[in-house]
């Protein structure tokens, strides 16, 4: 069981549980520790965090919890969430792993925008900071969303290298010009965080739309000079289908939120151009 959190849906704003009541359940020792952290911090910051659990009484209705965390320079949204979880409430749930913007686990909806928690500085945000799960995806629990649909779309574009022919001799590499590598370089930076898909209005309305990340993956291979022309045609057929590149209305929301600065919208337009070229016939 899960619930869908719509971007435009008005969620009950009033936190049903204040920090004080979260803190009330803590041991005295823990309370003292938090108080000391707060007292010695440069300043404190309030987080309003979306909470939901499909099986726990009192959490089945989505709500926001408030946590006051100590702030120090350089602190990120992920650091703040970890503090809230480890000090106030160990049931606070979110994905995270590398802490350095490469594993793509912690794409969140922070103050109304898709961002990676680990590379978003608290100091750059308006307070209080509102943290929600990625919109347009089923919420599994708290800030964790179901990524399966995203993965399915990624895998739908046959996301693997398929060269025309491999060089003879086991230790012979395929040559690739530095220019061609440059052309696909940005597309290979994708970390599968799902921020782009979540920000895309088209994906929100058309569940079958491949979405910016999957199309970008297709671009990575379609533009690689080492794949042959027949393979390229097959790749273009996949992306020019009804729920492919032509759905994109160039709103640039995916490009704006991409934490790896991949020019997603441009890549989608490039594949539109390639598709047209591919379909032109001269009599």
């Amino acid at each position: 069981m899960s619930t869908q959190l719509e971007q435009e849906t008005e969620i009950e704003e009033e936190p049903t549980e204040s920090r004080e009541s979260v803190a009330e359940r803590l041991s005295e020792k823990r309370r003292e520790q938090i108080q000391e952290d707060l007292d010695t911090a440069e300043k404190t910051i309030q987080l309003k965090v979306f909470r939901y659990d499909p099986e726990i009484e009192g959490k089945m209705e989505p709500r926001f919890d408030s946590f006051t965390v100590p702030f120090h320079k350089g602190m990120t949204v992920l650091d703040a969430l970890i503090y809230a979880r480890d000090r106030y409430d160990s049931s606070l749930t979110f994905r995270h792993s590398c802490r350095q913007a490469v594993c793509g686990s912690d794409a969140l909806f922070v103050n109304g925008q898709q961002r990676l928690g680990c590379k978003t500085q608290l100091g750059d945000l308006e307070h209080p900071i509102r943290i929600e799960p990625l919109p347009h995806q089923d919420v599994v629990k708290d800030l964790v969303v179901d990524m399966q649909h995203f993965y399915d779309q990624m895998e739908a574009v046959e996301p693997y290298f398929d060269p025309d022919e491999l060089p003879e001799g086991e230790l012979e590499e395929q040559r690739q010009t530095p220019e061609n590598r440059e052309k696909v370089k940005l597309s290979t930076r994708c970390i599968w965080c799902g921020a782009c898909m979540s920000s895309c209005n088209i994906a929100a309305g058309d569940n079958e739309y491949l979405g910016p990340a999957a199309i970008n993956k297709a671009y990575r291979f379609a533009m690689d000079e080492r794949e042959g022309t027949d393979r390229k045609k097959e790749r273009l057929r996949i992306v020019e289908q009804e729920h492919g590149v032509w759905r994109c209305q160039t709103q640039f929301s995916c490009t704006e939120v991409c934490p790896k600065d991949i020019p997603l919208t441009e890549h989608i337009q490039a594949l539109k151009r390639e598709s047209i070229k591919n379909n032109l016939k001269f009599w």
Partner: protein
Amino acid sequence: MYQHDVIVVGAGGAGLRAAIAAHEEGADVALVSKLHPVRSHTGAAEGGINAALHPEDSWELHAYDTMKGSDYLGDAPAIDTFAKQAPEEVIQLEHWGMPFSREEDGTVSQRPFGGLSHPRTTYAGAETGHHLLHTMYEQVVKRGIEVYEEWYVTRLAVTDHDNPEDRECYGAVGYDIKTGEVNGFYASDGVILATGGNGQAFDHTTNAIANTGDGQAMAYRAGAPVEDMEFVQFHPTTLPSTGVLISEGVRGEGGILYNGEEERFMFEHGYANNEGELASRDVVSRAELTEVNEGRGINDEYVHLDMRHLGEERILDRLENILHLAEDFEGVDGLDEPMPVKPGQHYQMGGIEVNEHGETCVSGLYAAGECACVSMHGSNRLGGNALPELLVFGSRAGKHAAGADMGDPEIPTGPSAESEDGAIESPVEPGTIGDRADPVLSDGGAVASPEELLESAVEKERERVDTLLERDGVNHAEVREKVQKTMTENVNVFREESNIKQALRDIREAREQYQHVGVADASRTYNTDLIHTIETRNVIDNAEAIAIGALAREEFRGAHWRQQYQERRDDEWLKHTMLSWNDGTPNLYYKPVILEGHEQTYEPKVRSY
């Protein structure tokens, strides 16, 4: 129960490579990982992949550099096998479409790296691990290899014969993080552990939060010894506030280290008169901390890494990712100012004892990648040698588990390889505490038919999960922080006897606290409180093994520096530190280093750069 020929636990570089190899050998293989494969920490590797590709280079030179880098604690058969096979693995990756950085003629670029006699580090920008991980995951998708993602393997199904060499592994127990289901993964041909590092035993680390040494701890408790655990690499260039890694590639491209007095200390204070910044990682880390300890650091904490003189174009071409990391995680613009750096835990040279086919002494149990110790890194790993290691030995383990005939291994494993008993004066009793039947703490399995054995392991894990969820108790974060803090304070770059003993006392205290651990979140849905609680026990076991090894080894070799013993002592210490769980009462012993290689016998020399 899920059934496959081969089960690979962990889906980072080693796991993916093993799965592909097993699949190519015809096995029905599945990957089981607590993360989706692309979330694995291999993706954070920056610098590169060493392989002797150039005609003027040779596998023999690569092997020699690796042996020298290991400070003569690597086993020659492992190192030779590695150096010979690394080129074909790199070319294989290239054939799979890995976006390597290229030369003008379209060939794969290679750059200099610390401790290498030839520029043999292939790379893809400063994001080599990211590209390696994604390229291999693409191949897994292409082959339709089954992936159980966000399934956390918590226990191995291993028989309980007295001698670990008689034991057999028939599978593993997993916990589905999304739903709370506990189930068995039956493996008719083998379980390959590829769970990565254990950096979470320290609090300043480049490792991911998920790197809790799960494989090392599970194998150790199931009877496979762990080897050379005291050898922990501290990377010299990590950002002070987060531990985020700044690639050795920066120094490879010409980056310079300065102390607070703007001296190029690697040369000016004589730490490495030939190689300077590109000396081996252990040498540079100690140099930086010496500068700081002698009052020549910056803010008494770090030194500066300057790459401004390389110019914007070269930096953007080869090190662009570094600019983003310095900006996002330290607020520093690397084009405009030097970057603050200090040593941080980075890599575990030791791990589960395996031979060059990836086999542990427990039949059917394999390990590959950072969680394993074959041993090729010995007491210090060279930069750019971890990624080719996971390719070479991941591939070999996968192939062997799938039934390939690879001949007799040259590296012996298990208690029968013991050459000498070990002992330490530990201030506390290490190992298990209290009731061995306690479901939260016990791990062993009864001898039975393979299916029954797995089913009983599943039952025990169900019981453990239920108990943890139902009882109130200490929060895991408190226990884990205690371990991390004492390890970073006491078993760091510089090690003193009294400090290591203090760490052992603190770890014991953490273990006692863990007896009373409880999970506050009662939910079966995505319960990270439970996952972190189970992981914390693994963190304790890893930390304890590191500290025991550190106290035992009375010499200075590679990454292991002891205040009382300022020299490498080859007459006594050319041997691996082995620790077996021994059903809860850890047993320390040694086995000899093998210096006899395929072409030559390596003679230990003074290691200078």
